[in-house]
């Protein structure tokens, strides 16, 4: 039997029917935690953290920028893992989780790029530099767009799931290769204009603020993905009896 020492039957929740109400109960918790962490983090970031010596107040965008950039990369990996599980074990819910994560990952990538541009203007004097990190983050956005486009182009949802899973796996193998090649390209082509590597050491409060906001972003992403997966479940299972009864 699939019952472990905690006494919870985990396999029970791999069925969309049982996961749907569970996700519904979890969303308020994650959303509430996201709100609390973000408020605390923003308070630390804007009121407690000291003004940075070289960049002045403009550096405070780091508190949004860095957590978003972390999430953008992390979500791609998690998405690929869910997609691989769906492909390997033919579990519908895994593929639905992958589809639910993709838009959140894309928006995190977009936020990271946009805040990066706004941060670059006062510190480097330009909205965009062809830096290795910026460029590979933009390519990551293209990879998300590819995933979303392929999903949208295939009408049969099971075929879409599995095709997107193959794409996500090919993508996740490629991401490190892309990152290192762009980094190499960058060191070859860029004159010594900006160096992100030699960032000044961060004060503890700054780091704390960023950590708390990162937790807030985590909670938000989980809540958003769960909310979206509920919609996907309803859409895909609309002909099932339990959905009709619930409706």
């Amino acid at each position, binding site marked *: 039997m699939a019952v472990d020492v905690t006494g919870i039957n985990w396999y029970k929740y791999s069925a969309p029917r049982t996961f749907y109400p569970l996700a519904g109960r979890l969303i308020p918790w994650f959303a509430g935690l996201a709100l609390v962490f973000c408020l605390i983090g923003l308070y630390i970031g804007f009121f407690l953290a000291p003004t940075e010596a070289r960049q002045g107040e403009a550096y405070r965008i780091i508190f949004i920028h860095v957590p978003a950039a972390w999430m953008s990369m992390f979500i791609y990996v998690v998405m690929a893992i869910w997609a691989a599980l769906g492909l390997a074990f033919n579990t519908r819910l895994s593929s639905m989780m992958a589809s639910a994560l993709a838009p959140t990952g894309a928006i995190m990538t977009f936020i990271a790029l946009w805040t990066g541009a706004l941060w670059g203007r006062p510190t480097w004097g330009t909205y965009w530099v062809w830096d290795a990190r910026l460029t590979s983050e933009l*390519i990551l956005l*293209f*990879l998300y*767009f*590819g995933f979303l*486009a*392929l999903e949208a*182009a*295939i009408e049969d949802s099971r*075929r879409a799931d*599995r*095709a997107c899973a*193959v*794409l996500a*796996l*090919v*993508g996740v*193998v*490629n991401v490190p*290769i*892309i990152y290192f*090649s*762009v980094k*190499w*390209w960058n060191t*070859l082509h860029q004159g010594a204009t900006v160096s992100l590597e030699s960032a000044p050491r961060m004060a503890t409060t700054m780091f704390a603020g960023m950590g708390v906001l990162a937790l807030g972003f985590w909670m938000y992403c989980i809540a958003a993905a769960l909310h979206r997966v509920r919609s996907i479940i309803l859409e895909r299972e609309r002909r099932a009896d339990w959905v009709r009864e619930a409706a």
Partner: protein
Amino acid sequence: MLSTFLAVVRRDLMLAFRQRMDVMNTLVFFVVVVTIVPLGVGADPNLLRAIAPGVVWVAALLAAVLSLQRLFASDYQDGTLEQMLLAGEPLAVIVLGKVVAHWLVTGIPVTVISILLALMFDIDADAAMTLCLSLAAGTPVLSFLGAVGASLTLSLRGAGVLISLLVLPLYIPVLILGAGAAEAVASGLDGTPYLLLLAALSLLAMVLTPWAIAAALRISVE
């Protein structure tokens, strides 16, 4: 297995030979793209010399993407692909044969004609040779990775644009290394590391992607 592989390569080469215009179209497209760049950026020889490797490589990427759509489409339409899926031979081997044939009729012509284009951009002989070698070493990756995109988008509406969207971001490492090789030689450095890395990527793609392509074909056709 080897005989299967050779049979598929021979068949696809024969088909390409019977429809020569398809192969020519890709090549002409490649030359046209490279030709319109000086018309856009101006005919300053120094500028053209500096951008030549990048331009040729970008054009090679676009030409590869353009040629991908027919890689599996005609076999899918006339039912051959289904027979290939049902065949007792491993699908990955059949796929390998198809992709190798695709490279022979797109990658090789692009590589050969790039010498002429290098002359038009007036880059020196060493750099031109390196550009040609980099195309020879790197274009297999374009065929292999592209075939993943082609198999995923088989029989979809607007597959052409979709393939470019899926595949072009994945091509970036090849573009960087390929254009970098000739640029390194042009600025007096050694281009060999780039060529070796390109060859390594080609071998990696040759080993890994046939499985992904085979899986994608089964998903698309079933």
